[in-house]
């Protein structure tokens, strides 16, 4: 019986988490940070990273511009048309794609190890020399508009979008990064080219390369294709205004006719990723609506009352203020009942906090799941970008078990109370 073999035997790091001794980090003279970690267990490579340009830079009337620009990069360059670009990638089983969030434009790519030079050539070419051909821009526009038409019919998407509008009212985070049909219609080819020329630059760019390549070779490849990039007028990332907390509970319903199920989101603001209370909030969130079959929320909304197949909580923490939300998909006639149960759990969460035992369970889960989350090259690349984006230090994953173990029930309660005020929640419903 023949099996495909990995080209090398087990590396020394097979039982260890990423750390300063096996992560290579280097800042090129033009400001690009390169992070690498070797994995010869599979003959593949994953590349991902980001640039300091996102939806926060979009004017209101052209909302979605950053994402439109990112999506258009591969539609043609000064050297190659879109079919040639994708032919080069797809012919060797590689992939490359771009997208934008509020703060950054991100990219992700994978290939077999032998095709890394090609992958990086195309990454640089699409970032530095896109030509935004008119005809391709129009094709892409139709695709984006179709995506928005589908979003408008998706109860979960619309509940989530409406929740953000309530929670982040008056703050840039209230705006969806993919825009609205009329703002996507308003974007011109020149807008795309201008956005790229103005906002894309090497300063603050990060690229992580994980897989079957020696770090020295990987860094050399990045220097070769992106080392000469300059944008002297690259602006500073826009500053974020503070978020005004909700004063009372605000409920908003979006009616989407003809649907069998309603989606409900109930929640409040959450800590930023760099907030000292983040890990306590994250563990608290696990207890509230993640652990096991979706924590306490899953227990009451799914297991005990059978109201929903999907019921959980999410903590979204990034650069700016986060959100802490409980979501459920329920029969339209059960929306009120589900909302009541969720609000009661939130009240219990801020009144009584969590038990030692619950916390110990989630701490064990957070620590124990690290090897699995870092199994693939994509998982490791994501971890490297995470520590870079939030300045956590190369030894973060080595310190992580101790950081998690140090969180106490009192800290969870404190962070829960700081964010959840049961009398001031955002409640969004989308359904028939």
């Amino acid at each position: 019986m023949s099996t495909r073999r990995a080209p090398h035997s087990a590396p020394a790091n097979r039982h260890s988490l990423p750390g300063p001794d096996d992560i290579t980090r280097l800042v090129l003279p033009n400001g690009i940070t390169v992070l690498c970690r070797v994995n010869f267990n599979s003959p593949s490579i994953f590349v991902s990273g980001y640039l300091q340009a996102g939806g926060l830079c979009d004017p209101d009337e052209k909302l979605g511009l950053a994402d439109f620009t990112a999506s258009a990069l591969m539609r043609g360059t000064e050297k190659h048309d879109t079919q040639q670009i994708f032919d080069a990638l797809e012919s060797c089983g590689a992939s490359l794609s771009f997208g934008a969030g509020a703060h950054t434009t991100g990219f992700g790519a994978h290939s077999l190890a032998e095709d890394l030079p090609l992958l990086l050539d195309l990454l640089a070419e699409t970032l530095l020399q896109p030509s935004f051909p008119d005809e391709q821009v129009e094709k892409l526009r139709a695709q984006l508009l179709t995506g928005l038409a589908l979003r408008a019919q998706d109860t979960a998407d619309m509940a989530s979008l409406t929740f953000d509008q309530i929670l982040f009212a008056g703050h840039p985070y209230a705006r969806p990064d993919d825009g609205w049909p009329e703002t996507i219609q308003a974007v011109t080819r020149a807008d795309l080219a201008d956005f790229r020329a103005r906002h894309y630059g090497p300063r603050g760019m990060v690229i992580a390369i994980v897989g079957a390549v020696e770090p020295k070779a990987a860094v050399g490849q990045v220097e070769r294709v992106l080392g000469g990039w300059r944008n002297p007028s690259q602006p500073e990332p826009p500053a974020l205004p503070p978020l005004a907390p909700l004063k009372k509970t605000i409920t908003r319903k979006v009616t989407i006719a003809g649907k069998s199920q309603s989606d409900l989101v109930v929640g409040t603001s959450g800590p930023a990723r760099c907030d000292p209370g983040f890990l306590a909030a994250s563990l608290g969130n696990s207890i509230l609506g993640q652990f096991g079959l979706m924590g306490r929320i899953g227990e009451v909304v799914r297991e005990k009352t059978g109201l929903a197949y999907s019921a959980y909580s999410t903590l979204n923490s990034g650069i700016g203020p986060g959100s802490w939300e409980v979501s459920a998909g329920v029969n339209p006639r059960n929306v009120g009942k589900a909302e009541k149960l969720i609000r009661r759990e939130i009240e219990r969460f801020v009144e009584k906090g969590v038990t030692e035992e619950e916390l110990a369970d989630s701490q064990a889960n957070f620590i124990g799941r690290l090897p699995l989350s870092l199994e693939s090259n994509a998982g490791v690349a994501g971890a490297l970008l995470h520590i870079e984006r939030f300045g956590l230090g190369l030894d973060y994953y080595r310190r992580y078990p101790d950081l998690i173990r140090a969180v106490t029930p009192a800290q969870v309660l404190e962070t829960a109370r700081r964010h959840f005020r049961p009398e001031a929640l955002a409640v969004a419903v989308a359904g028939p």
Partner: protein
Amino acid sequence: MTKPYSQHTLPNGLNVLLKEIHTAPIVSTWMWYRVGSRDETPGRTGVSHWTEHMQFKGTPQFPASILDKIIAREGGAWNAFTYLDWTTYFETLPADKFDLGLRIEADRMTNSTFDPKEVESERTVIISEREGSENEPMFKLSEAVHMAAFRVHAYHHEVIGDLADLRTITRDDLHRHYRAYYVPNNAVLAVAGDFETGAMLERIRALYEPIPAGAVPPRLERPEPPASGEHRLTVEGPGETTFIEIGYRVPAGSEADFLTLTVLDSLLAGPNSLNMFGGGGISNRTSRLYRALVEKELAVSVHGGLTATIDPYLYLLTIIVHPQRKPEEALAAFDAEIERIQNERIGEAEIARAIKQARANFAYGTESITNQAFWLGHAEMFADYGWFLTYLDRLAKVTPAKVQKAAQVYLRPQNRVVGTYLPTGGAPK
């Protein structure tokens, strides 16, 4: 590094496949049962999937309150899937905790409680799961396409089951299903990861040999008669977007033509990854249908997919129609591409490219131990593990002539169902 696998049959008939992979301190354990929606008759549709849900409701040894925490506490991942031909359960755990997965699966092979109260609470959970799916236009369209493609064969209904049956299935129906099919001689245990085969096998024998074999009901045999012509149907529902789904009847996963069809699919709609977990995903911008439909602004996306099944199933293609175009225009361009691949010479290079893409996807799949354990068992459900091991070698033997022949034989209009989702409008308010 990766040792060949080993296969063992216990005296009670349990089929065990083991594969040592020492790239990460992880072990993934999968228990597969040879039962799925293909074994369900009207009145009992959805019983396999509902039984799978009940397997998370506990046993005397692992009550639900313990079961749902015990894996999470160890930092493991676990889940279960019910599909057309099979039902499967997995636990991926840190290597030093692998025993827990083995113990849970041994226990719930025989000892699940099926508490009537839990059955009732799960009834509404599953109805809610179905209602969530019904929110999606593609679910409704796909359900209609399957009903048209399979009049006799049980592939005609959705795995989740029909609402009428979800309202009436009883605790005894579920328990009967469990007792009939959840026996070692109807199961495959597949374990891959960081362990030593001898010790693993010894532990498996200790846990599983005491479980008695059972009398497994014969699998439902209701072959679909040959198609008598093209079926066309429409489904109407909310939204502004038109979808088309085309299903061609194709052979079972174990047939030689199935591999040829995967190459044909790759040429038409782009490469598909075999990986269920992690890795893979190659875009399809240079595929024939993308160029003919999306680049020509008749559609905004097109995708194809084959599923390896026990019985002949469908090659399914889905098209999202361009907002300014009619579905007939997209379908006409689609048909022109099908005729082209049936009639014009296919180059060697195009086939070689599809094979390189498959090799790349295969390599990405080796990054995940869970994915490798999945295939160790999954291949046994419709063929055997050799199918997976020889996949790339057999793919390399596919020729342009074989691909063209497959297109001529299987992609005839008489052999398909064409479903169109017509949106009735309705912007959110």
